[in-house]
């Protein structure tokens, strides 16, 4: 069976949209999806400031545009999406991901829902405990919080060494594709590999 590795971060809006789109788009395709964590840097649009450099303006309006487009496509994909009012993190929830096997898909779907629909901070132990319980996963995983977070940094570094720069990144037979816009080609490649 073909393996498709997908690097995600719960706080990444593009990862959220890609998760749902990927599950629908690749449904019925004979493949194993491996969801891996990748810790992205926070990307909230910087506020407009006086004497902004050209580069700072570019960065600000680019982030504002991405946000508007993410909200637009969330509507198109019929997915509830609300940007958190403050810069929420999701490191702790993300650090749990490599430890899961069968429950992975439910856990990911719920984590995205908590973050993008309910705007819960998934770096907060109380919220992550709630997430684990709702996903029917043993909460004792969180007893070694520091170890989990160290491992997450390690996983992220390994992915960076492979060339991953942001999420969602799809890795198929060593080739990297950043963004769900590549799904038509990825699907075609999987079909070709499977045949």
């Amino acid at each position, binding site marked *: 069976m073909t393996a498709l590795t997908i690097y995600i971060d719960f706080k990444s809006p593009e990862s959220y949209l890609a998760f749902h789109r990927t599950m629908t788009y690749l449904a019925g395709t004979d493949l194993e999806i491996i969801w891996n964590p990748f810790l992205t840097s926070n990307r909230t649009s910087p506020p407009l400031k006086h004497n902004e450099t*050209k580069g700072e303006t570019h*960065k600000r*309006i680019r982030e*504002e545009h991405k946000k508007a487009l993410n909200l637009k496509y969330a509507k*198109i994909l019929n997915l509830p999406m609300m940007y958190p009012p403050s810069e929420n993190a999701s490191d702790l929830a993300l650090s749990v991901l490599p430890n899961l096997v069968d429950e992975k898909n439910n856990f990911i779907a719920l984590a995205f829902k908590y973050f993008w629909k309910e705007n819960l901070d998934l770096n907060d132990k109380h919220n992550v405990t709630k997430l684990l319980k709702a996903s029917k996963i043993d909460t004792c995983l969180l007893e070694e919080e520091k170890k989990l977070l160290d491992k997450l940094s390690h996983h992220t570094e390994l992915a960076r060494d492979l*060339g991953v720069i942001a999420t969602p990144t799809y890795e198929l037979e060593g080739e990297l594709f950043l963004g769900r816009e*590549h*799904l*038509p080609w990825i699907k075609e490649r999987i079909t070709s590999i499977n045949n």
Partner: protein
Amino acid sequence: MDNQETPRLTVYIDVKSPYAFVALMPTLELERDLGLLFDWKPLTLDIPSYLGSARKDDSGKLIENNRSKSQWSGVKYAYKDARRYANQQGKTLLGTQKIWDSSIANIAISWVSMVDRERLADYMNNVFAQFWERKLDIEDMQVICEILSASKVTTKGFEEFALGEGLEQHDLLQKSFHERGIFGVPTYEFPDEFLFGREHLPYVRWRLLGRPGNAPDIAYLQ
């Protein structure tokens, strides 16, 4: 198609952008398929202002570098990504050795739109393809005149235009982009919204067709 019911689409493009290069073919195909004439305009990127700068010698060795590690990773991925799609289109995309000033080549887009709109696709196909094969010095006025001639577009008055009225229009346009929230290429602009990136072409098509059925998600067309 009834053009009166179709919203006007402006496409912003820059010869030195690898992503604009791979967007060219599917955008021209869309224009042709729908029997429309898009309003193509130059957006000459100021790359060092947001992505740092670098320069390589003829052997590919880095001789000037003002980029951070993460900027390099982003640039490397962008070229690799654009190259595989260019290959899929049967085109060659070789990495550039410096950040070129593409203003003359871009002003020529406005020139062709003004003097011989029917030849615009030919000019853009020629200038993009040869530039990305490293066959063109796009900073040389004479070289751009040769590409115009090869595309059967008159060059009579082009130099004057490129140094006068055309340059003025070009510079005014560049100054307007950030205020309007526009920052990169390709950008597809309708009167009421704009979208950055060729992944929005399915949506652009859907809008130009009068929004039939559900709007599509982003995708790179193959």
